[in-house]
């Protein structure tokens, strides 16, 4: 913040111009350094995790930490041999199915809310987002009781329902904003061309907002994949997901640091890959409407 403020006062004579795009050389360098510090600050723990994953448990605990070490794949072998497989499958299943459900349910809702603002549109939108205002921890006991009563503990479908409910408000909000960017005339043109509302949505609107849909889907997937609290409280063995598995490395005998890092790397990989694949769409989607 200070750097930005300083740049505003010390830069060019155009400082009074409406949008001073160009910053002076000095403050530019300062911002670059700041950006690097922030960037490294974010990236370093990840790098450390990946590096540690290739160390032996002994190397992982040296102080000062070793930067040069003989890399080993033992930890990964151990992670897979130790049975991360079922957990990965559970996570994958819960993530994919809940995301599909979110898109399936959220798209019509968001489309309807974007079409024609009625008196209650704002109320409905507020209701959606208000469900995110209660901390999950405050709701976990009643949820546990209900799930237990239904005999649905340690059931992957329980997580799917909860993840769908958890992501739906965000998805509706996001998708609505994308739908709002679609020019009204396109819907009118489709209607004049003989398309029903459903066909207009499928044939005209969805192709246009597909980057936004991709962004929405990815965010839902990340949230579901990383979700820990419901999983740890409502599952035991059959339906447990990867985050629950990770906790297993914190044992009474101690923390298996290198193994934990290897498992965490494995857990993070699918999200990174998904993000990588969706990168272009994601940027397009998240900046949707910023540049028309």
């Amino acid at each position: 913040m200070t750097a930005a403020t300083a740049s505003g006062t010390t830069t060019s004579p155009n400082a009074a111009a409406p949008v001073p795009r160009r910053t002076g050389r000095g403050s530019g360098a300062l911002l670059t350094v700041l950006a690097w510090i922030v960037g490294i600050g974010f990236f370093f723990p990840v790098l450390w995790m990946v590096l540690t994953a290739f160390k032996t448990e002994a190397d992982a605990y040296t102080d000062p930490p070793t930067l040069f070490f003989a890399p080993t794949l033992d930890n990964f072998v151990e992670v897979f041999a130790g049975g991360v497989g079922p957990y990965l499958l559970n996570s994958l299943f819960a993530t994919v199915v809940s995301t599909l459900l979110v898109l399936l349910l959220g798209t019509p809702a968001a489309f309807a809310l974007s079409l024609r603002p009625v008196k209650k549109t704002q109320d409905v939108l507020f209701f959606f987002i208000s469900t995110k205002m209660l901390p999950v921890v405050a709701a976990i006991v009643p949820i546990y009781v209900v799930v237990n009563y239904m005999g649905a503990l340690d059931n992957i479908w329980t997580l799917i329902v909860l993840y769908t409910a958890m992501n739906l408000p965000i998805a509706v909000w996001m998708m609505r904003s994308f739908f709002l960017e679609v020019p009204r005339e396109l819907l009118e043109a489709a209607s004049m061309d003989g398309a029903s509302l459903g066909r207009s949505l499928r044939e005209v609107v969805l192709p246009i907002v597909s980057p936004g849909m991709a962004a929405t889907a990815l965010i839902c997937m990340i949230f579901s994949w990383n979700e820990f609290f419901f999983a740890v409280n409502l599952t035991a063995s059959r339906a447990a997901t990867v985050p629950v598995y990770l906790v297993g490395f914190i044992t009474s005998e101690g923390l298996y640091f290198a193994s934990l890092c290897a498992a965490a790397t494995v857990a993070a990989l699918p999200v990174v890959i998904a993000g990588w694949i969706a990168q272009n769409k994601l940027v397009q989607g998240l900046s949707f409407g910023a540049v028309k």
Partner: protein
Amino acid sequence: MADVVFDQASRIYTAGAKPAVDRLDLTVSDGEFVVLVGPSGSGKSTALRMLAGLEEIDGGSIRIDGENMVGVSSKDRDIAMVFQNYALYPNKTVGENMAFPLKMAGVEKSARAEKVREAAAILGLTDYLDRKPRALSGGQRQRVAMGRAIVREPRVFLMDEPLSNLDAKMRVSTRTEIAALQRRLGVTTVYVTHDQVEAMTMGDRVALLADGKLQQFATPADLYDRPANAFVAGFIGSPAMNLFTVPLTERGVRLAGHELALPRDVRATLGTHQITEVTLGIRPEQWTVTDSGTEGIPARVDVVEELGSDAFLYGTLAESTGDLSDDSAVLTGSGQDAVVVRTGGRSGTRRGDRIALTPSVEGLHLFHPESGERL
């Protein structure tokens, strides 16, 4: 092929407020090209959108081929529309855009391709069928929008200011193309524009709207020669008709201190209205310009617009007692004495010149000073 009837059709956005379209009566014959024209906020677009089914019909009815359209969704009206910004589907190619209405109508794929090819040939789009709209120029996009409208041979074409996003040159060429295409296809067409040149050149008949009310519905020539009221008189024609409020005299009217004699029958008509003033309209081309000091109303030229083929003189009429020596007087203002005169090109008249103006008696239009109705 169809006729379209607006029968007391109204659109009221908020209850109690002034209607956007106020009891519009309009009959468009089969195959006719009708232009709705008017200033912004006149309700012309709303009227078109009511016909399209994009706006509710709050009162009266709209019938296509005798079939009441109230409550019929736009997709079931068999109407095609060209939008101002074309509303092309950005993710579809030109060919897919044009084929879309056929696809919705359940036309076979091969038949679709055939019809799209035909339309593309008519519109000169054959080479662009595989392109996306964003790779086209404005004029080409406009033609794609036209193509999407004509492929499925609808009962009625609607066009909502389809030329307003084109540059001036394209607008003129596309104007004639659209008019020719409509004649060729013979499809009933309702065209909305705020541009009176488009209205005058394209329409078989022109409906002029203002404040949601129909002012006059007539052929372009009638609209020009016999405007129904002072509003129509002032709207149609460029530059606009000169309108003066002038006192009636024994023999006619007095304009800027000069008496203009009116025929006996006209005076008799005026006599029945119990008015002492009248709105006098004279088109810019209905003046004869002579040298200062000769017969006519003296005037000072404030601005000369030389267009080559003709020239427009913007001037100020002098009261017989008036004094034109003060150059700070209104330049081209719309003051009571401001006047526009059309002369041939290269008339040699310059800014500041003194001239004398004589209106032709046949060119005088008289309107009621309050209601504006033609007398």
